[in-house]
């Protein structure tokens, strides 16, 4: 158990030291990554990219039916 805690502690220190002693460019790109992920997942995905079939139908059977109709009628 102690060895697991030590390993976890070392792992935490590894990332903590890495982030806190990061260079100028490292800090800049992390800011960009965080802004980008926010824009992608919290703005674009939520408001602009709903799953079309998921939004219209709740079950797989309904989705299958719809796509089959599309394949037959288009």
């Amino acid at each position, binding site marked *: 158990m102690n060895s697991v805690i030590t390993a976890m502690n070392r792992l935490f220190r*590894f*990332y903590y*030291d*890495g*982030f806190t002693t990061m*260079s100028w*460019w*490292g800090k*800049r*790109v*992390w800011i*960009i*990554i965080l802004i*980008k*992920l926010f*824009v*992608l997942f919290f703005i*674009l*995905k939520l408001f*602009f*990219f*709903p*799953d*079309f*079939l*998921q939004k219209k139908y709740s079950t*797989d059977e309904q*989705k*299958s*039916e719809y*796509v*089959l*109709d*599309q*394949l*037959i*009628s*288009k």
Partner: protein
Amino acid sequence: MFENVDLTLVDWSRAQFALTAIYHWLFVPLTLGLSFIVAIMETIYFKSGSEEWKRMTRFWMTLFGINFAIGVATGIILEFEFGTNWSNYSWFVGDIFGAPLAIEGILAFFLESTFVAVMFFGWNKVSKKFHLVSTWLVAVGANLSALWILVANAWMQNPVGMVFNPETARNEMVSFWQVLFNEVAVSKFLHTISSGFLLASMFVLGISAYYLLRKREYFLAKRSILIAGIFGLLSSLLVAYTGDTSARVLSKVQPVKFAAFEALYDGKQDAGLVAIGILKGSDRKIGEKEVNDFAFRIEIPGFLSVMTGGDRNTFVPGINDLVNGNASQGIMSVSDKIVRGKKVRDLLSDYKAARAGNDRQKADGISGMFRDKKFIDDYFRYFGYAFFGKPEDVVPNVKVSFYSFHLMVMLGFYFILVFVLALIFLYRGTLHKNRWFLWVSLCSILLPYVAGEIGWVLAEIGRQPWIIQNLMPVSAAVSQISSGSVITTFILFAVLFTVLLIAEISIMIRQIKLGPKH
């Protein structure tokens, strides 16, 4: 039918996908290639213990890191688009597309959260050996990530290893290995990653040339040019070889696309490969589509036949043969394929009616036919043709295909020349004296990006009108959403990606100007 489809929606959905894919591909190839160059440099540092090599490794690793970080997750947008803009397609492909993408996602997550962290945070914290292994694993892992994406793309170009289930309206994977070792996937993967290696080599060569022009960082510049020259030359030869292999595969699985590359309308034996050519309009037509003639061309006699079939007697079908059929060569016309595709569609209508009428026996009978090899080979493989009204609808944009292909090939030969010259000048010790070459190298950094992007334009425009070759055209794949919403997100993406690109370029230029000391 096409009459029922809003082409504005299809065009904007395609344009949006193209925009995001093109931007995404600005980041990916440098990651693929630079990771290996950094790993090679670190290996030399590990073997030699030289601090100069360590400095070099860390410098190129910094540029790798900037590109990697800015590019991370840009590909996820493509997956958003599948669910929103291409829902019919996403449902129809079932787990075949999902499985490789899921593997890629898991691989990328573990790769990025562990070994990339060791690469950047691990200097002087982990052993030199473990650090080196991590760097190599990042290189191998990044390229394996690309494998799964390319496997998914290759399936769209040559759908194999699946059966269609009418009950779920989805394709179901029956052979993972057929999907993985799809001949298009193998050639596409090798061609794509080697083009990434080439691009990264040109990037290293160009930036090293910049230092020599500024009369600084001599050690780094010359050693980097040596690594980039050798790696770049080998990569560009591999690009040429795999390009040739890809073309041979395409001539089998996507013959219309292959004929469009060469603007070959009338098939023949002893067909020549156009080395350079200019197209012009003509009075001839295929249906309502204009046929392009050559205003000028230089041809390598018989080479196209040799390339596709191994000898000059090989018949290479032209667009006319493929659209109108050629009985003597055993080529079925598109009209016949449309008839077969429509039979499949009629069967699907019957299936739906049988299910609605609770005629389980009839529904099961029809469903079983979709698992029958003879039915698949004779009918289902032409299902997508049912969506066309005119045979010429299957012809892609010949001018774009032709010029993209020839520009890409010409650039490929140019890269070989640049790497050979770099190694010759380096060997003779005259690199810094040939300032013209240093300028050429610096200016050439952008050219592999151009070649890579037009390679994708060629692959994707050349296969139009298909989203899945022979099974589903783009018009049938698109979601019934408003084109206004697609235009809005198109503009959003254009802004977002441009900002990201400007950020990358400005941070990278700053680090390059600072050089390895910082």
